[in-house]
């Protein structure tokens, strides 16, 4: 008496399953890309130029000491996250307040940090200032072109950046608090 043949497993669909899994993983996994705050450092000069007497009203100075405490335009500022709002009011003053900037074109941001300042604090402050400018550019872009800053062409972006230039100067750090 012949034994019954076991039916062969149909492997034709195996490839489909494999591809399905492959595509699933392709879609769900993201390749990790580095992202960060882009900064253009000032060129190096042997002797720091003598401080040009700039009109004080046009300078938005942020000082961070070794204990990570902030001094914004000479006033203590316990909340880092308020810098963005302060910077925006300062830049868009357009001559109204005699103590604030004359125009966005003339506004200068100056950061002075101590050697003891923590990197985290420094990045947070920098991030806040960049956020302020990004918001202003976005608003100006919506107003002028009716589109988001992201969707503008290179030329249009330059036009906006000319109107509201990002000028962040960094003084050589002090070394007030050792350690």
């Amino acid at each position, binding site marked *: 008496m012949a034994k019954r043949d076991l039916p062969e497993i149909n492997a034709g669909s195996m490839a489909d399953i494999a591809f399905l899994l492959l595509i699933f993983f392709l879609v769900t996994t993201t390749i990790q890309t580095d992202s960060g705050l882009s900064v253009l450092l000032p060129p190096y000069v042997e002797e720091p130029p003598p401080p040009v007497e700039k009109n004080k009203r046009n300078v938005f100075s942020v000082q961070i000491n070794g204990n990570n405490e902030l001094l914004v335009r000479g006033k203590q500022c316990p909340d880092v996250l308020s810098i963005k709002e302060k910077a925006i009011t300062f830049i868009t003053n357009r001559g109204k307040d005699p103590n604030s900037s004359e125009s966005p074109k003339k506004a200068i941001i100056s950061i002075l940090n101590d050697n003891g300042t923590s990197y985290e604090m420094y*990045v947070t402050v920098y991030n806040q200032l960049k956020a302020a400018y990004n918001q202003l550019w976005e608003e100006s872009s919506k107003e002028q072109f009716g589109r988001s800053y992201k969707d503008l062409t290179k030329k249009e972006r330059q036009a906006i950046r000319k109107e509201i230039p990002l000028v962040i100067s960094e003084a050589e750090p002090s070394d007030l608090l050792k350690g």
Partner: protein
Amino acid sequence: MSKFKKKGSKGAPGITTASLPDIVFMLLFFFMVVTKMRDSEMKVKIQVPAATELQKLEKKSLVSHVYIGSPIPKYAAVLGTAPRIQLNDQFATPSQIPFFIANEIEKLSNPKLRKAMTCAMRVDKEVKMGIVTEVKTELRKVNFRKVSYLASDAGELE
């Protein structure tokens, strides 16, 4: 006697291996996608700060990495826990930065791309600015001014 005889053995048929290549390829592709090529072993512990205004670094070949952080426990016994700079595979001092940058520029296939090169600073958030400023000054001395402070996306954490 019948003309059509059942031929062959009556045992269980072998499982087809036709789909094995597919499975193997799938695994291969999966690992190709997921693994991140890390050309240097991390000798310092780094936890980057969080930020919101991030920009992605596009061309990997144009990015040079500088790591700053406390040495990992394996090296801490010898070097202590003071923050150190790591370039490629080695601990370094700020004075070695110009040499490192010159090396990175030499690696470029097209010298015209020099201007597009970026230095990615992967710095631990606990590090003090002193050492970071030293590195920045060295970079400025060799006129390598495009820098990116690597940070994690603060929006993702919330």
